[in-house]
């Protein structure tokens, strides 16, 4: 509650500032609504890096951080739309309904909603990144580098985005090493360094020698460094936090898309779109591959990266079975986007149940 109070207070201050600035500027102005603080060094941080790219391209930007996914979001959006912003990026799944609701009231303002699927009005676009492509690469590396054949995976919340990541990772790891076992621990947080470190430690103590994560802080790679096992960076390049442990990172790169869309607004060419970009479009970036990886693995990964980018390889290529052995994707077929977007079952080979 106290956190919410400060956030609201800070939000109001930022809005007040926005309103004052709005009176003088005439160019295209972009606003960003963030779920977390820009200082999380994860999800919100990467969106803010994207915002800075827009700023560097010569546009004015505003952001409001720590906006709860509630009626508060509507209020913030309405105020941003009212104060002369031409395009508003709402960067969390929970802003889906508020975005569409406010978009109806402001037909001249463009709305861009991240990770959602509702585009109820012509001025609403949606965008997301195919992070699962990055996880195919991580799975390939993990399956090759593990010696204990136990791979640890720290997950956040049981939503399609995370399940898809686990599946993509496991499928790729099994492809190179059929003996691996993926142990999953749900931390039920996006970032809480203490908890994440404890989850990673538990997995390491139980024999995992490669740790993957779908939470945001750098605590896990640091724990891996201390314990002398391998890990992968999440959202941003985490190599400097754990130079020995981090083999590579999957980076979220929103900048090019943001610049593109703001430019489209400026040129008057903006139109409704549903964007789901992956490695090929540069929205998902694989950081430098660590030199501890054998040269043949590195070249294999480079090739896989190129094939994922060109579409020659798809992360979910059949035959894929679920845990009970039911066919999910037939041989020679690939999972369509509808299936990927709603994926809530583990593939065969993942241990345990999805928590409710």
């Amino acid at each position, binding site marked *: 509650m106290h956190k919410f109070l*400060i956030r609201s207070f800070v939000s109001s201050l930022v809005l007040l500032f926005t309103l004052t600035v709005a009176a003088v500027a005439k160019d295209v102005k972009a606003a960003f609504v963030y779920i977390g*603080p*820009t*200082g999380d*060094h994860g999800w919100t941080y990467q969106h803010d890096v994207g915002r800075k790219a827009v700023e560097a391209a010569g546009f004015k930007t505003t952001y409001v951080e720590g906006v709860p996914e509630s009626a508060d979001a509507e209020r913030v959006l309405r105020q941003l739309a009212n104060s002369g912003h031409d395009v508003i990026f709402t960067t969390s799944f929970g802003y889906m309904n508020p975005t569409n609701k406010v978009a109806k009231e402001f037909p001249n303002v463009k709305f861009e909603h991240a990770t959602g699927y509702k585009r109820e009005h012509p001025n609403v676009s949606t965008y997301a990144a195919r992070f699962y492509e990055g996880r195919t690469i991580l799975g390939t590396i993990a399956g090759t580098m593990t010696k204990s054949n136990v791979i640890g995976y720290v997950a956040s919340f049981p939503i399609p985005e995370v399940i898809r990541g686990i599946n993509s990772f496991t499928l790729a790891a099994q492809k190179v090493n059929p003996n691996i076992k993926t142990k999953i621990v749900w931390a039920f947080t996006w970032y809480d360094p203490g908890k994440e470190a404890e989850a990673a430690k538990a997995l390491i103590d139980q024999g995992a020698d490669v740790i993957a994560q779908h939470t945001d*802080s*750098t605590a896990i790679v640091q724990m891996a460094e201390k314990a002398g096992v391998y890990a992968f960076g999440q959202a941003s390049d985490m190599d400097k936090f754990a130079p020995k442990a981090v083999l590579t990172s999957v980076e979220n790169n929103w900048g090019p898309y943001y610049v593109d869309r703001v430019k489209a607004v400026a040129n008057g060419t903006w139109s409704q779109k549903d964007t789901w970009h992956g490695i090929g479009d540069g929205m998902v970036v694989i950081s430098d591959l660590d030199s501890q990886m054998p040269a043949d693995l590195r070249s294999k990964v480079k090739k896989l990266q190129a094939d994922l980018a060109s579409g020659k390889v798809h992360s979910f290529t059949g035959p894929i079975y679920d845990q009970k052995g039911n066919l999910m994707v037939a041989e020679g077929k690939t999972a369509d986007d509808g299936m990927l977007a709603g994926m809530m079952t583990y593939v065969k080979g993942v241990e345990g149940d999805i928590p409710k």
Partner: protein
Amino acid sequence: MIIDINFIGLIIASIMASAVPLILASCGELITERSGVLNLGVEGMMIIGAISGFALMTVTGSLIIAIFGAMLAGVLISTIFAFLTQTLITNHVATGLALTIFGIGISAMIGKNFVGIPGKEFPILFEGLKDTIPLLGPILFGHSIVFYFAFALPFITSYFLKKTKIGLIVRAVGDSPESASNQGINVRLVRYACILYGGAMSGLAGAYLSMIYTPQWIENMTGGRGWIALALVVFSTWNPIKILIGAMIFGGLTIIQFHMQAIGVRIPVQFLTALPYIVTIIVLVVISRDSRKIRLSTPSSLGKSFHKDN
């Protein structure tokens, strides 16, 4: 593998490491509460300690300056609380809550420039001895100096309160400030000192998180541990030794839950998250059945302002 004795040692060592910030903050708060002051600002003081420690470590490069600087930062922020509650006689609860909100806000502001910087390695003691004794090796050796200090602190605190004159004065002030004042004890001075000490320990607890446990700075990184520390003091019925046990239980719940998940046992996470608080409520219910015991263990003037008539 699960029955492996060293594996159990590793789990216990993880639990102990996670208990360190709770023990430090709780032992500090215990002294504050023993003097009759209820400071709900533990979370705020911890987060200030966390950012101060991390910032000083990054800027000066000295771990010693950073650790003591974090404690000093805790002292400074608790001075605000002490001045408001002791000199201006404000309400303890409201002031403590304000301190937490203030701490979280200001730490985020200072911390803006320290996001995404890796921390420095903190020296570990007796690492070579870790594998010499089965089970006890990983428990006893290979930890930071703060770890050993935290596990000595409850015993020092207990000795201080029971056996030393100053300890008795602190308890007297907490139980009956009027009588203590009539005996010529400067109640305000004692309470000031106890509040500042609590601030120093909370600051150290925060520094442990940002410098040793997860060496990095991100906003809100204390993640509610200050509130758990507060609950622990009540749980312990103001007995430092019980803080040690409580901190192990509270810290251990998360770790054991993660281990059970990795093995494949499922327990609803929401239940486990709530467990520390449920345990606290049960303990409160149990001790409140014995009114004599609660009278004996609770500082009688806890949370009440003392205003000496001139």
